[in-house]
């Protein structure tokens, strides 16, 4: 079963799916594991594991700090892939690699794809790699049966949106607003319009990300998007309330799928 088929199957069970995010090595690898366990128990549908980078240009202040602290904690590729492997063996949700393009470039695109495959990942998200720069990465990911997740934004022209959607695989990552991660998204008619536009060009499930935080956000998206992506809001809760608060927040989001 490929990723799209898996998502469509899950969609028979839920009105919307939940994708969550972990910055590997922040606050620590041990705490990452606790987050993943909570995600497993909440039966989260999809998880992206972010490999930290020194120049996280598409991230907001909270994730920038998380990237920086994770690197200060000494996280390297090996730690990242070890965690990916343990998590893919232990939990049911599929895992995507999220990283900046220098990580894939430094590793070499071929090694990058085979590493994700060997360690149990199903695809990847690279926010600073536009499709023009993919080169052989499309072919290499096909060889390893990985889904390269494409990002589109409301600022894209119609033509580019179509282009991105045509190259999409797995699902389409729709960035809900201008700016970087961790900001508030007003789910107004703009987002609706934008999702309708993406739908015009793709049959893949649509994931809406950037700035979602509460169950109400998910309720509002029922029938409009197939996946809600929650990143910084959960990390914020971990920092403020620790594991118990995190679990509660995660459960409330998981419940808001129906």
């Amino acid at each position: 079963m490929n990723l799209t088929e898996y998502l469509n199957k899950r969609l028979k069970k839920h009105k919307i799916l939940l994708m969550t995010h972990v910055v590997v090595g922040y606050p620590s690898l041990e705490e990452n594991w606790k987050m993943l366990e909570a995600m497993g128990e909440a039966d989260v549908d999809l998880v992206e594991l972010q490999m930290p980078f020194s120049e996280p240009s598409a991230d907001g202040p909270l994730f920038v700090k998380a990237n920086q602290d994770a690197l200060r904690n000494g996280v390297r590729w090996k730690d990242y892939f070890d965690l990916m492997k343990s998590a893919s063996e232990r939990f049911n949700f599929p895992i995507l690699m999220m990283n900046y393009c220098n990580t894939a470039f430094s590793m070499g695109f071929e090694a990058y794809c085979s590493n994700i495959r060997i360690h149990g990942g199903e695809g990847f998200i690279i926010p600073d790699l536009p499709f023009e720069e993919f080169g052989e990465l499309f072919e290499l990911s096909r060889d390893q049966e990985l889904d390269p997740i494409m990002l589109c934004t409301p600022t894209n022209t119609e033509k580019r949106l179509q282009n991105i959607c045509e190259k999409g695989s797995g699902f389409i990552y729709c960035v809900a607003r201008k700016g970087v991660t961790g900001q508030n998204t007003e789910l107004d008619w703009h987002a609706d319009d934008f999702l309708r536009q993406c739908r015009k060009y793709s049959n893949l499930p649509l994931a809406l990300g950037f700035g979602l935080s509460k169950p109400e956000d998910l309720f509002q998206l029922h029938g409009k998007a197939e996946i809600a992506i929650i990143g910084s809001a959960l990390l914020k809760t971990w920092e403020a309330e620790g594991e118990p608060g995190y679990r509660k927040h995660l459960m409330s989001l998981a419940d808001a799928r129906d």
Partner: protein
Amino acid sequence: MERYNIMSMPTQIISPDISGYYGDYGGMFIPEILRTTFEKLISSFKEAKADPEFWQSYVNVMQNYSCRPTPITPLENFAKSLDGRFQVFCKREDLNHTGAHKANNVMGQGLLVQRMGKQRVIAETGAGQHGVATATMAAKMGFECTIYMGSVDVERQRPNVFWMEQLGAEVISVTEGTATLKDAINAAMRDWAESMETTHYVLGTTCGPHPFPEMVSWFQSIIGHESREQMLKLNSKLPDRIYACVGGGSNASGIFLPFLEDQSVELVGVEAGGHGIDSGKHAARFSGGTVGIAQGYKTYFFQDDEGQMQHTHSIAAGLDYIGVSPILSHLHDKKRIRFTYSTDEEVISATKLLIRTEGIIPALESAHAFASVIEEARDIPDGAQVLINLSGRGDKDIFNIAEAIGDHKWQEFLEKKARKS
């Protein structure tokens, strides 16, 4: 000295391919959110570049507001102190308004902002020179202005922060990462991702995603076009060597590019050797860097084996940067430009020598080029003519230079001042 007027549009000596690449370097590695903004910028710049009136308005502004054309000064005493076998000249970019070549780029981009009808400009700054230049341009042209500056640099360059604020700019101290130039660039990019409809990002150097390297080097090439004409007029021949310091690479691209096709002219880029290459504390990307992709473009970066950017070090904040212009990387690989470096220590003694022999106070950045001429003096042929790009003046460095020289009278003065307030 006679004034030289460049009235005709210069031809672009080196152009990127359609994807913004110079050979293997450059490109546009940008989040999708910025794509449309970049495409608009590319087409605005393309139109402006094809419009002779735009270049004319640029030259006019630079003449009336920034002392262009800047003179070439023969440095006879300096040359004599190096045993006098060859001649040394310097291009006086320090005489630009705001004291450095940075004015060329910001005034050009300012005119472009007017053309695009935007009302706000943002910029990153390392040494503070580009920040002051941008704030000055914004004051003159009536734009709102926000400057991002690493908190480490804010500490090193307080006088420039003071002037930026007096000029009406909001200065945001960036504490993330290494709190230097690269982090200021990240912060400015983040601002732009949210403000692009009304705001232009005035990138300060020939780095970043396409079209910035092309655009900044086009404006900066006024340095080399003038120099070429001036040296021909002065000596009836082209210089044998040209030295320029290299941080991001804007002053070097500016003076080098118009000489690219003159094969007899040796071009030497001087990077920041910091405490020496072996110490690991430097910013010599061509000596200690590898090819990578960050901050929107592909080039030589100072990074580890997993592509994480490393701390750079230089006594000159303006050279303290992880990446280098993709244009220069391309010309490095093609061996058209030779790259070397000068250490902090060599730079301090070069600064002292230039001040004493010529009465010129160079910026610590520019002093790298002078230090390299001193270092290589033995190998420079008899009768050769060497041109150095004096990219900026050193007044801003008074705190750092005084500290490096260990001037105790200055130290006492600072202590007295501090006690008073």
